[in-house]
């Protein structure tokens, strides 16, 4: 082989703590290396040109670049060598930045380590073989999971782009958290008035198929060809018949059902439509509150329904859809208020979450838009807002800033004044984060125009005193303790991952962070992609986000799907397992352990049983290779010989270095 080695300085990122010239000089002596040079920025245009020129002039048939992590630039350099006519798999990277220069302090040791990493890259490259991708057809339908504002936007953009779009929503209506908000910041316009038309578009779009009250049961397959199982939960109402007239809810005698749409502020009927603008506007029965299910009597709804839509026998149903890409837009949930015992969360009825407060402010909410204390219905004359409840708090493993609370708290303070002009408003805050367009101006309005008293400090406790609530906090700017009496305390509770997000991540085979938010493929450059090809993220499921950011990300995800679907066929990764039929004894252990069902049993010409890899299904994990005692099945590009070459070199070199 004729191997070229390019050692990147990455400015001072690598060269600062690694002697790149020395690494290159050492590499020059490695077997089959005919060229080894150091270069300021290998990934830059001149850097890549130099590689191409070297391949052409020196007749290289293998290239090693020692630079950053392959997770960053492997694809870049593979295209580079391909432009010079090499097969893209005749390339290896040595990660001497993230794994060396950025983590080791001793330049000499770093240089040794970098040299070793270059050497094992060379050793592996010597066993590399050209691999060729196969192509396969793409199913140009897209699945959008979650129909909050991000999911709605993604679905509408995909459908407008001409794609068949399947939308799966867990609750009985689309709209998500945004539909629950009274107004939005910083414009203070009616939230559902902005969102409503989009919800209607979603329902009426001829390219969109909506499954409400449904969840993802399973997802299999791979980019371009996913198979999804959708569980449609029983609503006990035949939605094909239901007209949404609401007669059932009017007559339902069970009026104590928990009202989830109203964040448990107030109660609803056992059969209900969550709110006037609900899409689809269909009734569903909460079996845990319905007298028919609890006591086997009643049945009023069935009697009054003019279209005979009530079906107490209805069961969950699983339907299957085939899609080529998935947009995950499952949003967030607020942390459980009961976790905040110091503020009486869950104990004092007049301590509410910010989302509950939105419902209390909303004209379509349980109080009809009249601000009332939940305990006794009186109009509050003092409302205290507490920021960062469950955010920036390591003591409860929540180091993150939830991002949007500062803004909605200001909005809620402003709205409080417009509901009850003589109400005092106080906001306890640590820092105000208002970097959006018009955001900081909005905070100033809350303080200047709406006379909101901002107190810089955390609150230690909320306790009942003289029939009201005493809020004891600090004013760190004054260096004092403060106590203020409140009729209502609103906790700006931090945003956590949506309930069930970890389970969903496992079904989709995408990663999530410590808080349960889904991991993007790269924090800066691939914010919408996941590490699973064909699965994209939109909105707050990736981390807390406000409405404009969620909408933007919804559109971005749709754009990614359309770019993916712009090709008729996709190329499969040739880093898949391959069976050596001569060695295969036909035990089929590989077939049984393959997580993807990518191995099938075939008859050889002599009638004997052999395993065979379905290349478009194989994901390249290599579990089969390890399972096979005879190594009759090997994962291409990560064969035993390739990995052994690395192990053997390291051991051999160490042996040689070790004192006799």
């Amino acid at each position, binding site marked *: 082989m004729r191997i070229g080695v390019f050692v990147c300085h990455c400015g001072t990122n690598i060269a600062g703590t690694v002697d790149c010239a020395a690494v290159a000089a050492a590499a020059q*002596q490695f077997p089959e290396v005919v060229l080894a040079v150091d270069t300021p920025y290998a990934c830059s245009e001149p850097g890549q040109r130099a590689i191409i020129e070297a391949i052409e002039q020196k007749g290289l048939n293998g290239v090693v670049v020692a630079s950053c992590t392959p997770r960053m630039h492997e694809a870049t350099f593979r295209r580079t060598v391909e432009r010079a006519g090499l097969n893209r798999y005749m390339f290896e990277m040595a990660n001497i930045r993230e794994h060396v220069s950025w983590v080791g302090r001793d330049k*000499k040791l770093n*240089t040794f*380590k970098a040299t070793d990493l270059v050497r094992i890259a060379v050793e592996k490259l010597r066993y590399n073989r050209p691999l060729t991708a196969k192509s396969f057809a793409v199913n140009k339908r897209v699945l959008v999971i979650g129909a909050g504002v991000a999911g709605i936007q993604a679905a509408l953009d995909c459908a407008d782009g001409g794609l068949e779009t399947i939308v799966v929503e867990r609750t009985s209506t689309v709209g998500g958290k945004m539909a629950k908000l009274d107004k939005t910041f910083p414009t203070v316009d009616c939230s559902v008035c902005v969102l409503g038309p989009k919800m209607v578009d979603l329902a009426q779009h001829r390219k969109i198929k909506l499954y409400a009250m449904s969840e993802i049961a399973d997802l299999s397959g791979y980019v371009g060809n996913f198979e999804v199982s959708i569980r449609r939960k029983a609503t006990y109402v035949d939605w094909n018949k239901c007209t949404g007239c609401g007669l059932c809810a009017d007559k339902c005698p069970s009026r104590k059902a928990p009202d989830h749409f109203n964040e448990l502020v107030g109660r609803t009927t056992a059969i209900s439509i969550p709110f006037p603008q609900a899409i689809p506007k269909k009734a569903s029965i909460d079996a845990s509150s319905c007298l028919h299910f609890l006591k086997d009597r009643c049945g009023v709804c069935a009697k009054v329904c003019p279209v005979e839509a009530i079906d107490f026998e209805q069961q969950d149903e699983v339907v299957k859809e085939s899609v080529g890409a998935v947009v995950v837009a499952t949003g967030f949930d607020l942390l459980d208020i009961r976790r905040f015992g110091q503020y009486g969360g869950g104990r004092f009825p007049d301590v509410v979450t910010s989302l509950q407060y939105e419902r209390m402010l909303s004209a379509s909410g349980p109080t009809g838009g009249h601000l009332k204390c939940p305990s006794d219905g009186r109009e509050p004359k003092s409302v205290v807002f507490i920021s960062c409840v469950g955010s920036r708090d390591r003591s409860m493993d929540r180091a993150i800033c939830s991002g949007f609370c500062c803004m909605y708290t200001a909005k809620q303070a402003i709205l409080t004044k417009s509901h009850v002009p003589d109400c005092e408003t106080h906001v306890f805050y640590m820092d105000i984060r208002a970097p959006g367009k018009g955001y900081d101006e909005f905070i100033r309005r809350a303080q200047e125009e709406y006379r909101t008293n901002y107190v810089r400090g955390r609150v230690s406790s909320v306790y009942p005193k003289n029939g009201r609530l005493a809020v004891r906090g600090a004013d760190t700017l004054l260096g004092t303790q403060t106590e203020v009496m409140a009729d209502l305390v609103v906790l700006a509770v931090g945003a956590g991952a949506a309930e069930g997000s970890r389970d969903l991540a496992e079904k989709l085979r995408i990663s999530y962070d410590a808080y349960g938010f889904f991991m993007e493929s790269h924090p800066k450059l691939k914010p919408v992609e996941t590490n699973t090809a064909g699965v994209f993220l939109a909105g707050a499921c990736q981390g807390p986000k406000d409405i404009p950011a969620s909408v933007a990300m919804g559109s971005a995800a749709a754009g990614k799907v359309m770019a993916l679907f712009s090709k008729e066929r996709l190329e499969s990764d040739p880093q898949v397992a391959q069976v050596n039929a001569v060695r295969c004894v036909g035990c089929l252990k590989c077939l049984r352990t393959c997580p993807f069902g990518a191995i099938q049993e075939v008859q050889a010409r002599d009638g004997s049983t052999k395993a065979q890899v379905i290349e478009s299904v194989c994901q390249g*994990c290599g579990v089969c290779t*390890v399972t096979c005692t005879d190594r009759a099945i090997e994962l291409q590009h990560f064969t035993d010989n390739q990995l052994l070459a690395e192990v*053997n070199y390291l051991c051999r070199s160490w042996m040689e270095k070790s004192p006799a």
Partner: protein
Amino acid sequence: MSVVDGKEPSVKELRIIGFLCNWCSYGGADTAGVSRFSQPTDLRIIRVPCSGRVTPLFVVKALMSGADGVLVSGCHPRDCHYSEGNLYARRRLEVLKRFLPTLGIEPERFEYIWVSASEGERWQTSVTAFTERIHALGPSPAVKVNRYDARLVAGGL
């Protein structure tokens, strides 16, 4: 092959190989790098697609041929990019860990852990702890075999 000035570095490094899955742990090591979490330099990382690709034989081969320590790191259980690879790995590697003492190799020289792509700090802590553990154990006795072989060759046996 000599580097810098042809002399051994002043700090004595031991010989540690890491097998890291591409999706979680290799990413976690990258995250540690991006965050500049400094670590001992002894470890040499070999990238594999999945911890399920790591045959225990790689580990034994390394330990019997002169590595002082081997660390395998994959995605947390339930979080495997290939959904199950690390679960197979866990069984194979646990059996291996228990097998090592029969070969006269301290089982502490081998460890397998789970580090996700977001856990840069955990990676730093793990590498540091493992490197310290290997330094506490000292160089591997497996060197003996190879020296024994060298003597056999030299002695013409």
